[in-house]
């Protein structure tokens, strides 16, 4: 097991170096000039431009800039946002809880509906229910979620007025950010109605972000179940006369869960990509929207730091999934 672990980490190291190079290079390759952007229509004189480039360290040779960058990264310093002039690290982790909260809700929503739907569909293979679930899942999987979000806003916020249009909580509630998770903080604050408001704000974004994972999980669960249900030992169990609920619950489900868990783990990247769109539509103050804004503002250090942090997170989650998979399924561990 230890060897397996070390192996995985050894593979990850060059990937991480690659990620630092990419994050770094991307930003140098971005056309456009952050200083011009700051100066706006007025512009700056060439002398002042040079002076500012020097101040921000953009005038040094590229390899030197890279080494400085890596050195700083290793010390946990991702530089300062050009726009807000605050450390990128702080900016990112101020906003990250919002993204995390939304992602967790979305994945719970996806599992809570997708898993049972997939299982039932598999058990009742060929039934109307099965067809409906699969058709819905494929539609969800094909959904342009930015449009889906707009539609939900039109219907639920615009026409019906049931849900708030954007934000995380009504401004009427104001309390200290202890965990950064609005659901928890609103409860801790003890203010009446705060939690309800936080939940209200979460509903639409959760549905939008959860749609694709939901579809993927439902489809994956169904096919994993079908496969397991076709295996000899399940047939044997059935033949032995065990009641169907026990066959499904005890034997099939446990084995079908292995690929499903992997699938869920792999949704993290999907969620982060989806968060970019979802947060944009709902003005959700998370890292996805922040990244988009930073790219359009040419906030070099913010984009660079953000890319690096997000990629690191994805890598970390993938590693965890890998290890879990190895734990559950010894065959994989030994094959490598």
């Amino acid at each position: 097991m230890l060897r397996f672990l070390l192996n995985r980490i050894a593979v990850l190291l060059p990937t991480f170096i690659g990620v630092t190079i990419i994050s770094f290079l991307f930003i140098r390759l971005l056309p456009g000039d952050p200083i011009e952007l700051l100066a706006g229509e007025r512009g700056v004189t060439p002398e002042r431009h040079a002076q500012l480039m020097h101040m921000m360290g953009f005038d040094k040779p590229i390899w030197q800039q890279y080494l400085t960058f890596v050195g700083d990264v290793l010390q946990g310093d991702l530089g300062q946002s050009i726009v807000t002039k605050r450390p990128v690290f702080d900016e990112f982790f101020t906003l990250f809880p919002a993204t995390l909260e939304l992602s967790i809700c979305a994945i719970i929503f996806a599992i809570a509906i997708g898993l049972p739907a997939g299982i039932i569909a598999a058990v009742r293979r060929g039934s109307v229910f099965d067809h409906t679930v699969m058709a819905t899942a494929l539609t969800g999987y094909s959904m342009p979620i930015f449009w889906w979000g707009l539609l939900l806003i039109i219907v639920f916020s615009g026409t019906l007025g049931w849900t708030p249009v954007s934000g995380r909580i009504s401004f009427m509630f104001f309390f200290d950010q202890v965990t950064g998770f609005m659901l928890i903080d609103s409860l801790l604050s003890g203010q009446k109605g705060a939690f309800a408001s936080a939940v209200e704000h979460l509903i639409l974004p959760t549905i939008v972000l959860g749609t694709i994972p939901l579809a993927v999980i439902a489809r994956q669960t169904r096919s994993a179940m079908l496969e397991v249900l076709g295996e000899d030992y399940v047939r044997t169990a059935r033949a032995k006369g065990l009641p169907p609920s026990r066959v499904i619950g005890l034997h099939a489900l446990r084995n079908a869960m292995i690929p499903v868990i992997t699938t869920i783990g792999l949704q993290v990247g999907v969620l982060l990509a989806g968060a970019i769109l979802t947060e944009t539509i709902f003005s959700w103050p998370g890292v996805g929207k922040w990244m988009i804004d930073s790219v359009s503002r040419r906030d070099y250090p913010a984009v660079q730091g953000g890319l690096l942090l997000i990629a690191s997170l994805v890598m970390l989650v993938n590693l965890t999934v890998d290890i879990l998979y190895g734990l559950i399924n010894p065959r994989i561990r030994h094959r490598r």
Partner: protein
Amino acid sequence: MSKTLVRLAAGLFAATMIAGAAHAKTLVYCSEGSPEGFDPALYTAGTTFDATSKNVFNKLAEFDRGTTKIIPGLAESWDISEDGTEYTFHLRKGVTFHTTDFFTPTRDFNADDVLFSFNRQLKADHPMHEYVGGASWEYFNGMSMPDLIKEIVKVDDYTVKFVLNRPEAPMIANLAMDFASILSKEFADQLQAEGKAEMLNQQPVGTGPFKFVAYQKDAVIRYKAHEDYWGGKAAIDDLVFAITPDASVRYQKLKAGECHIMPYPNPADIAAMKTDAAINLMEQEGLNVGYLAYNTKVAPFDKVEVRKALNKAINKQAILDAVFQGAGKVAVAPIPPTIWSYNADLKDDTYEPDVAKKMLEDAGVTDLSMKLWAMPVQRPYNPNARRMAELIQADWAAVGVKAEIVSYEWGEYLKRSKDEDRDGAVLLGWTGDNGDPDNFLAVLLGCDAVGGSNRSQWCYKPFEDLIQKAKVVSDTAERTKLYEDAQVVFKEQAPWATIAHSVVFEPVRKEVSDYKIDPFGGHIFYGVDLK
């Protein structure tokens, strides 16, 4: 921000919200974005100024709310020396800084605060010159303050003298701008002693009508009225900025009564707002101009007739309808009508495609293909440059001119459009900083600005002489005459097609009284009341 302090503030706030909900007046402003920080001198964005200089800080001189007129601020009066190079300010006495959870002032405002506020920007060796990484004091530099100010002298505790290198007629207007906000030196010293100077950019302490309470990034900013404000306590007790980047969402919230005032409505929603009984749609012409700048250094645009002909081929009314959707006025002069010295007698180029076609033929220009630059971003003076470019493209096609629309990333666009041998005509615009005509005419059309902010690369002696002269005389009547003449020269030479001045719309709920639109595009809540 220390956790206990925040919690304390939160507790206090919650207490007032619940106990005093009946009588505490809370004004909610649905702002369009997050402030970059809380030290206005570090930034150039209006969103940041709204959250800081417009409501939390004062300047030596101020603009009378809702106008571009200058009135005394923290300086009760000022004298200007004969040669126009020495400005002496007599400071107001008994002005207090905000007492907050993180700072308790021990003294009133005085000359030290003025010196601190400016010297940190002016002097490279000032301990607070680089108190946050990348502090570049962009506005201070952009207004050429380092070249202009020789020194700032403290005459006594309540008298400060600015010594200039040359006379500069718009100086007082400059000192009413956002970068000239007066901060508390005592607070800065305290932060420095604690080794956390960078907090100056996160916790503003000023003398203004509202004091800062707390900020939740990208979500909400809270303020309370400054009880001892020198101009009298604000009519509202609490001020909340609910950050809402999406315009249609802001409108939703306004309709639902979740906020009282919103900036930058979608042009598409204006019509609906006009008929909404709960909303009072305020409007005012913005202090800006949107233009199309030809490159007068490149043939055939070096010929006045060609530029005039192209101007005559543009159907400006159609642009106003489709792009501004009524939220704009056709621009005739290079300065907006709200600025003094605006020449109301100017005649605009009429829309006559046939004449234009003929003029082009007469000038020997046939089969003209050119580039038409469209900005990639939305600006107050041009809500949709792409759409505007498409309309102009179609208009020009009708007179046989083929225009290819090009665009670059915004920073790149600004940079490339400055090139003296740039290919094509550029859509751009300008929003005034201080309400002085010099701030438009010299910055956008002066000879010094060629290769810079003068996008038409137009250096024309008769025009230049007029605006240079107007810069050094201090008599306003004389200056007015000079600027009026300069506008006539501009119109004859047509380095630009002047397109539009935007009309600023601000929907305000009916229960809000005495709100005024700021011509500088700011949002000021002192003087506003709730019914």
